[in-house]
């Protein structure tokens, strides 16, 4: 077993009192709870991840493409207007949504895509919910010249038609999943099945920091660029963060954004939580509060009713009924509409290192609207959950405090959702005219 520091850029000291070993477990969470048929491909993936990703050649290629293809570094923006309006701490926004294809998802898609190529895989598969991860994978596969198939729940395909269209433009085959709730979790199931049938030639690019080991470690590694870059950008301004805020679906943008600050978890309570005076920033994860509490109305696993369970190959907190069946979830943002959370986040939440709160559908939409008008910056609805939390918490910080929220994606993709919420009548008229003009053209 090799040290985690090899793949992460965590120095040994920073890893501190945590085991610097890739065990696949975070406390008792994580693991590889899969049928025997998937053990071998997962083992091969782990070996490849640990030997190839830290190599100089891989890192050079990955870093170069992050620059030329993804458009990194993404800016760190000082939200001066908001800071002035709200009082309290200074707000910074990491504009991760300016990365190619509009979200952080491409950092991970590119990393795994390059790994697939070096492993000699002939075919890539992926799951997608909102379609952001699918679009990122499709673009990366077009760039790298690997055939790509994306599984997507039929319900999501209907809600997110534009992303289906873009994936197909990038040359991906989008396969509708008609089983279960026909959403993200069912797309994951279908991708796992495909992989079990074609383990030799297929690479499965999982889109969040969850699933069986080594995915949580690998996805965090590829997303850690968000946090590493933010830390450098703050340092160049002579600043250190007081608090970091990110939305949490499966948890990939959050764990990547928080990554330089997660460890060590000290036994002294203050060091764990982070305060304005300690060296450790507060880390705040924001889950989908949906329409409010109540079964099926939200996706709050840590701040709500999440139960310890084993689903889709990993142990973590999930929204489950008393028999262990997975409960339905709801969020206005498809990217947060998922019943499980990455095991490392669940572990750090239970340990008290990360605080979890929720923002509702409404609060997210209002935050999206607020930042558009106040800063000229358009948050994706997922990221707007983090934005809403920032607006809520900012006044409670001191003037010196530096609060950074990760805008994991930009909001253009949500046009069909936000327009019907915020400008229903005129949007209806527009759509009607479009439909009519399509008819004329026939």
């Amino acid at each position, binding site marked *: 077993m090799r040290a985690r520091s090899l793949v992460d850029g965590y120095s040994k000291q920073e890893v501190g009192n945590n085991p610097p070993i890739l065990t696949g477990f975070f406390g008792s969470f994580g*693991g*590889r*709870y*899969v*049928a*025997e*048929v998937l*053990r*071998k491909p997962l*083992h091969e993936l782990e070996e490849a991840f640990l030997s190839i990703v830290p190599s100089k050649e891989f890192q050079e290629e990955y870093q170069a493409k992050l620059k030329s293809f993804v458009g990194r570094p993404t800016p760190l923006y000082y939200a001066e207007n908001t800071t002035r309006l709200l009082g309290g701490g200074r707000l910074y926004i990491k504009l991760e949504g300016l990365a190619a294809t509009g979200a952080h998802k491409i950092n991970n898609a590119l990393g795994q895509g390059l790994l697939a190529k070096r492993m000699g895989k002939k075919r890539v598969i992926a799951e997608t919910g909102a379609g952001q991860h699918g679009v990122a994978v499709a673009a990366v596969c077009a760039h790298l010249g690997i055939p790509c198939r994306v599984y997507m729940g039929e319900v999501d395909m209907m809600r997110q038609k534009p992303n289906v269209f873009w994936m197909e433009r990038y040359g991906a085959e989008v396969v509708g999943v008609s*089983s*279960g*709730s026909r959403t993200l*979790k*069912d797309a994951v*199931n279908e991708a*796992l*099945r495909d992989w*079990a*049938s074609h*383990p030799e030639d297929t690479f499965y690019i999982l889109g969040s920091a969850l699933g069986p080991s080594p995915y949580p470690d690998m996805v965090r590694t590829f997303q850690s660029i968000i946090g590493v870059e933010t830390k450098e950008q703050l340092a160049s301004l002579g600043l250190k963060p007081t608090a970091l805020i990110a939305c949490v679906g499966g948890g990939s943008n959050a764990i990547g954004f928080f990554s330089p600050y997660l460890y060590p978890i000290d036994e002294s309570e203050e060091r764990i939580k982070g305060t304005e005076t300690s060296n450790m920033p507060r880390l705040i994860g924001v889950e989908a509060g949906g329409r409010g509490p109540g079964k099926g109305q939200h996706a709050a696993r840590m701040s709500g009713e999440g*139960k*310890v*369970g*084993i*689903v*889709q*190959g990993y142990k973590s907190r*999930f929204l*489950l009924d*008393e*028999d*262990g*069946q*997975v409960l339905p979830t709801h969020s206005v943002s498809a990217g947060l509409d998922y019943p499980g959370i990455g095991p490392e986040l669940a572990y750090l939440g239970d340990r008290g290192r990360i605080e979890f709160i929720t923002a509702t559908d409404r609060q997210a939409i209002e935050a999206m609207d607020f930042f558009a008008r106040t800063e000229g910056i358009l948050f994706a609805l997922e990221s707007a959950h983090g934005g809403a939390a920032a607006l809520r918490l900012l006044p409670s910080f001191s003037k010196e405090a530096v609060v950074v929220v990760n805008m994991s994606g930009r909001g253009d993709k949500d046009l069909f959702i936000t327009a019907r919420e915020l400008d229903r009548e005129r949007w209806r008229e527009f759509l009607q005219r479009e439909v009519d003009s399509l008819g004329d053209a026939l």
Partner: protein
Amino acid sequence: MKKLMCHLVAGYPTMNLSFQAALGMVEGGASYLEVQFPFSDPTADGPRIQEACVQALDGGFTLREGFLMVRRLSRTIPEIPLFLMSYASLVVRRGISWFLDQAKEAGVQGLIVPDLPFDQDEGYYEAAWERGLHPISVVVPTMDSKRLDQLLGLLQSHGERYIYVALRTGITGDPTNLSDENLSFLNMLAAKELKVLAGFGISSYGQVEALSPYVEAVVVGSYLVGIIRESTTRFGGSSPDQGESLKRAVAKAVSTLIHPV
């Protein structure tokens, strides 16, 4: 001698009809029953079984009712060993001890939980053996030999002889090809005096005949789910004879898998 282990989803198409289907399997000549408790996210199952699970859950399947149904089965057909198949989420939710106690009390003899592998089992294997239940591992021919040896050593040290082989690399419902790789794997297990239950994709007498010499029992799953679906849609509605006709259809299908037409 051709022995079958017939698979069914508890609660599909309804609780009572799944009970009748089980009786039909035994009437048709099944030697073992594998009762699956439906889970919302059955990653190791093919489309047919998955669909059946969704329907059973939509129909209101609960563990309580599932265990009641299994108890009724074990009382009605005490001569047939009953194995319970499900997923980790259901087994660990209220605690492994609770789940295994319920299973034992319901008359189950063994369990198949594909996503609790022997080396990441949350204590499930030991807890099953303590109760005199068989924790049945699902293995595949592509398995790493060191890992397989580790498992076989563990089974041997507990006198556990049952083992379940998922033939071909893949998911239930696809055709099985009895390749040399599959057969040499089965022979190797048989040489270790293991009671091998093997299947995935079995739907014909020819396949059963080909596989039987190498195994304790041939597992039939998706095919029978298809038979149950066909039979219940054909007779439809809530006809009082529906249970009887389903039982007959299933018995006939099972019997034609064991006897040449």
